[in-house]
């Protein structure tokens, strides 16, 4: 029973890592950009939901929708202002640029929202239900349902739509995709918007569970990098698998063995995985960027 309880909280944790990592891995896979500012997108999403609930007085579900739309707009701005000018630069310049973007957005967050954490109050956060002996918070169930729905939707989008196919083509080979007449700019904008929106939804979903603060993105970002590298940079199924693996491993280790080992376990898995499969668990071949 105890194991089941830990398993469930691990799945919830895994959902938050997955939502975050999906955007991170998509943006890397298609734009070739390691986005260190992804944690700040998550933070802005959480704050947007908080202020939507506070100022617009909408209910929580509308607040999540507002946050998602807001983040999509922000994704568009970031693609035009930061990512597109970076196209063609070497990896080091791109990494330095996104670290800079992260610091900028974090301090912008402190300026706009203030340094103190806030709490997004919802009815769902304080309701717990008992399912066969498991005590489960309603908000946590919402997190799982929304994450699964988004994964399914993302899969349908990339398999069935023209834009989805174009994205997959770009992920395989950007130059070849361009030669086939695919509008690269459209693809990169769509990717960034989806990535930012996913991070924003992630932030908005955890806002009632945790506290919302300008530095909330830092910690989850480090974990998400472990997740994404574990699954293979740029690999979508890898990010999903890695997210759930790290979440569940963390929760069970902290609950059944020792809470001191909580942060150790994610990175221990990463190190072991990289020893045996350095390109990531799901990658078919090492991607060489020239």
């Amino acid at each position, binding site marked *: 029973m*105890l194991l089941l309880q830990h398993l469930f909280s691990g799945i919830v944790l895994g959902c938050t890592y997955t939502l975050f990592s999906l955007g991170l891995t998509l943006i890397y896979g298609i734009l070739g950009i390691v986005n260190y500012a992804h944690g700040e997108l998550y933070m802005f999403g959480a704050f947007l939901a908080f202020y939507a609930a506070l100022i617009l007085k909408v209910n929580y579900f509308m607040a999540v929708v507002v946050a998602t739309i807001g983040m999509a707009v922000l994704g568009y701005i970031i693609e035009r202002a930061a990512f597109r000018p970076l196209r063609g630069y070497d990896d080091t310049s791109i990494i330095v640029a996104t670290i800079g973007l992260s610091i900028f957005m974090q301090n912008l967050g402190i300026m706009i929202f203030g340094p103190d*954490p806030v709490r997004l109050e919802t009815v769902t956060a*304080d309701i717990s239900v008992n399912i066969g002996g498991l005590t489960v918070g309603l908000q946590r169930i919402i997190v799982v349902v929304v994450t699964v729905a988004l994964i399914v939707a993302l899969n349908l989008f990339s398999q069935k739509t023209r834009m989805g196919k174009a994205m997959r083509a770009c992920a395989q080979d950007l130059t070849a995709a361009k030669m086939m007449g695919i509008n690269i700019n459209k693809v990169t904008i769509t990717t960034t918007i989806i990535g930012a929106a996913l991070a924003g939804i992630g932030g908005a979903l955890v806002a009632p569970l*945790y506290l919302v603060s300008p530095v909330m993105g830092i910690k989850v970002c480090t974990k998400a990098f472990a997740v994404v590298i574990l699954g293979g940079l740029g690999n979508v199924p890898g990010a999903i698998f890695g997210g759930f693996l790290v979440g569940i491993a963390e929760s069970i280790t902290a*609950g059944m063995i020792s809470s*001191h080992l*909580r942060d150790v376990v994610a990175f221990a898995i990463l190190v072991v995985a990289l020893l045996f499969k350095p390109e990531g668990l799901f990658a078919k071949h090492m991607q060489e960027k020239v």
Partner: protein
Amino acid sequence: MKKLAKLLFVVGLIVLCTGMAFAAEKEIRIGVVGPMTGPGVQYGASMKESAQLAVDEINAAGGVNGRKIVVFFEDDESNPAKAVSSMQKLINKDQIAVAIGHYNSSCTLATMQVTQRAKTPHLCPISTAAAVTESGNKYIFRNCATNPMQVGQLANWAFTNLTKDGGTKAAVIYENTDYGTGLTEIFVDMVKKNPKWEILVQESYNPADTDMIAQLTKIKSLNPDVLMIGGNLTEAAVIIRQAKEIGLNIQIMGLGGGFSNDRFAELAGVENVEGIVNVSYFEKSSTNPLAQEFVKNYIAKYKKDPDMFGAATYEAVDIVAQVAAKLPESAFDNTAKLRQAMRDGIAGLDALPGVQGPTTFDETGQADKMVYIVRWEGGKRVIVFP
């Protein structure tokens, strides 16, 4: 010619400085150092506002035997290196008689060596690390309770009020830092000496952690009577909400003073903090008449409630004024003499009334301060002890 001018300038400066140091003291200069910028800015602001209030009140009433108190504020940015240079400036340039600072223990531990070398008394109103008064430094005086004193009082209150006939089982969750582990060690040691109490489990978390469900689920499965939290406000708010979420409905207590803040109820939710017991250095509902006076004047001047850090700083300035008032006229001959006389006067205090209760320093410079034990009721803190 240029060289000569420079030389004259330097000589002039030296004459000016030594002249300053040997002229009879017409005023009492004090320095207040705290985090005026950086992450601790709200605490530095509390220190500054309260010190200014105390100085204004004393000077408006004619000063100390006709001498005005002049206060110099300096910033330490919560950074020990910056704290040292700020303290050196206060001592060498501003020629202060007494230093008051800091918020962060790391800063106090760094600058108390500067004040010791300059033989300048140093009042520490806020930093709680036990090491501050354990180094044999004769110039440091602390007018607030240390971590061991706070945990000791809370544990004793719990032993008196929460001990069950069949024995009480406690669980501890603490922040994995010097602060959190320090609080926990003291509590665990106290429990070991009490046959009616036992510690079932000790779990930890890291600062900025957001998911404590795993630890709390483990704690719940062991079925304790009491949960102790050794940490700070933000994470504690998360712990309390998640404890309620998984149905862990037991008495929760805070080992440190960090939860005694109105924001705690805001972050954790008024209904979730109900019944939580924790330590507090200062409460505006205190029945101490000096405290009531301070709260009234602070609200009148700044249009907001004072916090515990402000109260401690106000008390420190008041200690300076009270000690200076009793000094003989000969103590004011020069700065060095005044510093020594102030040190001896502060060391010799006997139950001096203050906003945080009476102050007597022991030979290490530590004041025997009582802390309050408070219980959250309807989003407000109610004093349950003393």
